[in-house]
């Protein structure tokens, strides 16, 4: 447990050192937030009601789908995995430490948006902040677990960039964070429902919260975790460890 704790702390430090996760988890989402906040709220004052939720969903999706998978593939697609296995480090360690470290980064980024939105753009704050953050945690966990599948399944960095974009772009365009989904053709609206961002966004803006949306995200989370487990098992089974 101490080893795992140190590993997560170390991963968190390396993420800051490497700058790539820093860019995808903080710099780009926050710059986007500042830019969209000033544009949206000036041309559409009603967007103040959804600004916090939409920018959080965008930031989380970017950090998870664009930021995390390359870091996972850097370990599981290279000799680092073998080095870890040769030195008795369990196969789940790298993905778990990256997952938890990214979770901390994304919660910090979301916290910044939560604080800055009302201060800078007079955005509406959630009526139940605790519930808002509980739903946010669920959404971040779902997004990160899908990002883990990408990183564990696709080891080629070029292919991974393409696959990440295929997941990320519909999450932004079809989830309703940029414009209402009712404006989309029905088939695009249906595709949008496959994105966790759609359900996450609804959970962050809806009052009261629809439990069915929570169930959908929970189901996606369970399925994603089962797939991650299966992928890790297949990695494990390729090594026959001596006693």
């Amino acid at each position, binding site marked *: 447990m101490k080893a795992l704790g140190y*590993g997560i702390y170390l991963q968190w*430090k*390396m993420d800051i050192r*490497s700058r790539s996760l820093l860019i995808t988890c903080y710099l780009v989402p926050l710059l986007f937030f500042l830019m969209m906040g000033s544009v949206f709220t000036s041309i559409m004052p009603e967007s103040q009601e959804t600004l916090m939720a939409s920018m959080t969903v965008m930031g989380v999706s970017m950090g998870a789908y664009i930021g995390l998978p390359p870091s996972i593939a850097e370990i599981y697609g290279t000799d680092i995995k*073998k*080095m870890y296995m040769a030195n008795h480090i369990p196969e789940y360690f790298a993905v778990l430490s990256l997952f938890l470290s990214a979770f901390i980064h994304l919660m910090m980024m979301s916290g910044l948006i939560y604080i800055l939105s009302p201060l800078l753009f007079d955005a509406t704050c959630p009526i139940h902040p605790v519930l808002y953050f509980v739903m946010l945690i669920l959404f971040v966990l779902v997004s990160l677990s899908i990002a883990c599948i990408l990183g564990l399944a696709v080891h080629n960095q070029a292919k991974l960039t393409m696959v990440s974009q295929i997941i990320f772009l519909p999450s932004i365009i079809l989830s309703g964070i940029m414009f209402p989904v009712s404006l989309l053709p029905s088939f695009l609206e249906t595709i949008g429902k496959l994105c966790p961002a759609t359900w996450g966004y609804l959970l962050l803006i809806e009052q009261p919260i629809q439990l069915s949306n929570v169930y959908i995200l929970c189901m996606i989370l369970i399925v994603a975790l089962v797939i991650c487990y299966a992928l890790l098992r297949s990695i494990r089974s390729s090594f026959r460890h001596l006693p």
Partner: protein
Amino acid sequence: MMDTIMHVSHLKKKYQTLEVLKDVSFDVKKGEIFGILGMNGAGKTTILECLEGFLKYDEGQIEIHGQIGIQLQSSALPAYMKVKEAMKLFSKWKHAQLDEDIVKALGIQEIADQTYRELSTGQQRRLHLALALMGHPDLLFLDEPTAGLDVAGRRALHENIIQCQKQGMTIVLTSHDMNEVESLCDRIGILRQGKMAFIGTVEELAKQLGRYYYIKVNSQEGEKVYTTQHIQQTLMQICQDYQKQNLDILDMTVNRGTLEQHFLEVARRNEI
């Protein structure tokens, strides 16, 4: 009498239809340095990966008595992990510390604050060796330990390997560098076409091949190497030949053959 730390019997491994290991058997004795030699594609890395547990083999048995440490031929760490952080992380997972004298000998303290991406190839190899040595394994596997190192780095790593043996470790290594194997290994195994063509000491290999002499002659025409079992006759014959051709012998050396020469002889022959 030395005990056996590793026993390998009738090991077989196929990659689809390609049979890489065909019935390989050998023992490694406690405290020795055992070198596995072979041409490219002979199955050195395959056999080592089977022994280390990275590869499933099809048939046979491997018995290892004790803890193992592994230094892989190609291995890496996250680019932004510092050396001291890697040491701490690995020691926590292995529940073991690295002896202070090994830390000093490998020069880990001097590179402790550098990230992995800042290390030279030699420094990376030293770090990999340090991590493999953590927990004082009984048996250490080294796959091409000095590949890509300069002369100084190679010499330093040789000293580290000998130091490990002095501390009671058994070492199994593969290498392309015959001088390295000759100077480090107590016994060698030569893999040829998926089988152990020879197991024993370098002296035993020379004896088994026959009492060969290697004569190197330098003249105005360049260098020529002669192989013979009858030194006197051949030397006289060489002198006569050079005299007939009006060539001056500038330099001549006679030796009983290096490991490289013996190895090539084994690789060339079908049976020894």
